């Protein structure tokens, strides 16, 4: 069995308004940060997972992302995977 460290990034789709991102953008500007054109907030999920090779693990992570980690009506996801 191989072990992998996976980082999943879940983001609101560009078409979905992100009011938390907008509020944080506003605060960033009040802090004095200049030049911020856009700020959107997502989630990062770290998973350590075992499996027989990368393909099998990718299959499991795809299922998790599609069915649980992200709601694909409103969110997109991508992930990176590192063999430990």
């Amino acid at each position, binding site marked *: 069995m191989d072990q992998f460290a996976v980082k999943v990034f879940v983001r*609101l789709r560009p*078409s*979905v*308004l992100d*009011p938390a991102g907008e509020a944080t953008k506003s605060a960033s500007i009040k802090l004095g940060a200049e030049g911020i054109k856009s700020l959107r907030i997502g989630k990062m999920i770290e998973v350590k997972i075992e499996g027989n090779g990368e393909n099998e693990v990718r299959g499991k992570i795809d299922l998790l992302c599609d069915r*649980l*980690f992200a*709601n694909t*009506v*409103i969110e997109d996801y991508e992930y990176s995977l590192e063999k430990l």
Partner: protein
Amino acid sequence: MDNFTVGVVVFPGSNCDRDVSWALEGCLDIRTKYLWHESSDLSDVDAIVLPGGFSYGDYLRCGAIARFSPLINALDEFVKSGKRVLGICNGFQILTESGFLPGALVANKNLNFICDDVELEIVSSKGGWFNNVDEKQTIKLPIAHGEGRYHCDSDTLKKLVDNELIALRYKNNPNGSSFDIAGITNEKGNVLGLMPHPERACDETIGGTDGIFTLKSLILK
């Protein structure tokens, strides 16, 4: 109606389950039974309410974890059989997360938790959830939510409109919902999800009775 029993689902974090039961039993004389989320035996209930609250602490997304409970897994057959399911607030979020209703509910546009009475337009009474509200086309119900902004893509919205699946629209959209949507049904009409709380409007002494008919509709065949 004597033996008609409405199952009121209790998830860890539900907090309107007792209100729903009180409204059904106390105001409408309809028998209720609490259903713990780990139960998958729905054989002795005739309709189901998924009440408001914060199931599983709203972790990950509202309704996302509840979707995987044994009870929600058993709900598919229940819905297919034509029995009625009402999802209120967090219950609506669970119904969208689990695919019984299209779209999703996301953070209110102004990020506030909104606790207020709102005017609602009855758009469609598919399934008979609203079709006897003294022929009024506007009702007033309480809302209490932080993540009640209904969102769907344009194709889904068109389908909702074309098939008359939009049950309720806000008169003064409080949360930024697409097309002012406050409640929708499935195509068959036996599943209704709405953000407002009809169970909190079943007695004049607590502010109105516009919610009574929707709860009473649970016993329709």
